């Protein structure tokens, strides 16, 4: 579906992208994780056709159109972007917003009402369709932001932090929506800072920093490669001992043979650990 090959882009004195290659298949969610300034926005902008790479190529292979770069409007028609900022018109109703974006994306005039209804129902806003978007809660506005990205039924969705600042219920609804999109065969490039979202949603994750992809693969593969062994935490009368081991059960039995812990738990490595391991703990916005 989407193939990024050896993308390089210089912005001012910074090498924003330095040889990035990535593939996203239909029906797959690929997470893009990286600290601030890592190159995520540049990558999304180039993928969306908003800017051109200095080197490398972006190609979308589509079922009903010849493959090509997203700088071509015919290709951009198959891309949906949900920016991190709420890119909707507060003065228009939810339905008017979606009808406008559908028309802009060349949906046939006769098809627009049905597409709008379907998109509103998909994100659970059909009951508020005629209310102005300015009256929506943060979560509803986020859902409308997502609906605006998919009202023209794109093959590729670029979702940039789609759950920022929403309540848990809306967040859960949004994540369910993204999962449904995968089930519908959409290719999704999902940018987020929330590791638990990436762990829940993404089939594969790419960790990017300083314009390079540092690690890329399934969650399990990343955890295995960069997360280190699981940790066995044992508590003895208030004192906690931590043992890193690939066989926590065997170690627990061995320890318990001499001392009986008051409690224990096995902590598997997390994606956050992998992220910090790869990108470091230094603050990037200081």
């Amino acid at each position: 579906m989407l193939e990024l090959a050896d993308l390089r882009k210089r912005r001012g004195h910074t090498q924003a992208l330095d040889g990035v290659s990535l593939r996203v298949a239909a029906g797959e969610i690929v997470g893009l994780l990286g600290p601030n300034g890592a190159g995520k926005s540049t990558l999304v902008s180039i993928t969306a056709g908003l800017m051109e790479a200095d080197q490398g190529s972006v190609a979308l292979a589509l079922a009903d159109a010849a493959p090509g770069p997203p700088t071509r409007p015919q290709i951009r028609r198959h891309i949906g972007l949900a920016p991190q900022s709420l890119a909707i018109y507060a003065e228009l109703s939810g339905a008017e917003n979606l009808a406008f974006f559908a028309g802009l994306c060349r949906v046939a005039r006769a098809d627009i009402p049905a597409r709008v209804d379907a998109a509103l129902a998909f994100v659970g806003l059909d009951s508020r369709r005629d209310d102005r978007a300015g009256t929506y809660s943060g979560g509803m506005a986020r859902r409308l932001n997502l609906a605006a990205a998919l009202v023209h039924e794109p093959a590729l969705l670029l979702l940039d932090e789609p759950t920022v600042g929403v309540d848990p219920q809306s967040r859960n609804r949004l994540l369910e929506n993204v999962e449904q999109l995968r089930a519908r065969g959409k290719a999704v490039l999902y940018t987020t800072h929330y590791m638990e979202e990436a762990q829940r949603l993404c089939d594969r994750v790419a960790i990017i920093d300083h314009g390079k992809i540092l690690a890329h693969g399934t969650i399990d593969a990343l955890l295995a490669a960069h997360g280190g062994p699981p940790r066995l935490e044992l508590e003895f009368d208030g004192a906690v001992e931590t043992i890193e081991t690939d066989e926590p059960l065997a170690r627990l039995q061995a320890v318990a043979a001499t001392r009986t812990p008051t409690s224990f738990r096995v902590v598997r490595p997390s994606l956050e650990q992998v992220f910090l391991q790869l990108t470091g703990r230094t603050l990037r916005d200081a």
Partner: protein
Amino acid sequence: MGAIYSIMVKDLRLLLRDRGAVFLTFVWPLVLATFFGALGPGFGAALDDADERGEGGSLAILVIDEDHSRPSELLIAELDADPLISLAPASLTAARDAVRLGEAPAYLRIQTGFGAAPSALDPPTATGPDAPLRRVELGVDPRRGAESKVLAGATRLAAWRALASERAPDGPLGREAVAIEFSAIVPATTSAAGPPSPYAVTFPQGIIWAVLACAATFAVSLVEERKRGTLLRLAVAPVPRLSILLGKAGACLVAIVIMELVLLTVAVLGFGVRPRSPALLTLALASTAIGFVGVMTLLAVVGRRTQSAAGLSWAILMSLAMLGGGMLPLFLMPSWLQLAAHASPVAWALLAIEGAVWRDFDLGQMASLCAALIALGVICFAIGTRSVREL
């Protein structure tokens, strides 16, 4: 075309749902035109006190001396000595045309018999009801009422000085001794149709304000799109960037045309304004709309933040309005600035609309103004389209 239409409809909807923008664009120009029309022709700063002349330029008046007497020559000399006024001789026909076309604010015609008329110092037999009067015809551009008041005052003062210098040996002379009968006329209305309604003067100015308000409102819309993040969505949409600008230009054009029609309808039906040439008025209004839509597109792509874009738009448009004589009598400006006023598209538009409403322009006189407005619009739009690629 579908995308352009979508953007147009969306932008007009956004405009109609913004009460402030609706008031500024649709209501305020109507209030201005109606209010100042009710006050009388020619709105702008009134300047009755000659001490308030300041450092402004001079009022270029065409003068026709039909009397060729010593008093008339003295009057002209005194008037010419006034730093506020500069005189240029002209024939009556040329002077009337110049004022009608807006090329000169006024002319002064010293009619035959001016020198022979007695003053209050002459014997009573000479100043009876049948005695000849000092007659001066003041032909004024009704849009420039402030200047005409200054001119009438200056003429009276000059006449008194002229007579006083002649009679100095007789002692002090009161101003009432030099009675002048002014007949103020509007050259464009010397036909049987009579003088134009004050609203014929103020409604073209109201239309200009409406056009400026529309242009300023839409000039910030692109920056607003950037601010709310929707510009990103527009840029990702499968449409050329030019379509975005065309959509906004189309919405601005529709708003301007609607506003022009509303104001015109109110002027005709509510205030009895009768445009001399509906066809030329259509041409003038269309050219004005095209010109300022072009200016709007250029302003739209220049700004990067709402405040700076709004400030820049209003600063530029207000400068053009001031320079075009829409806010301040031109004669208050230095002479070089008066010359520069001819370069203001506001002045072109105002003159074109007035030309069709009450100045009796023919197509030839209208053509250069309309061509300049259209050319301005096209050039600004072309520059705007180059910049919009960098959105």
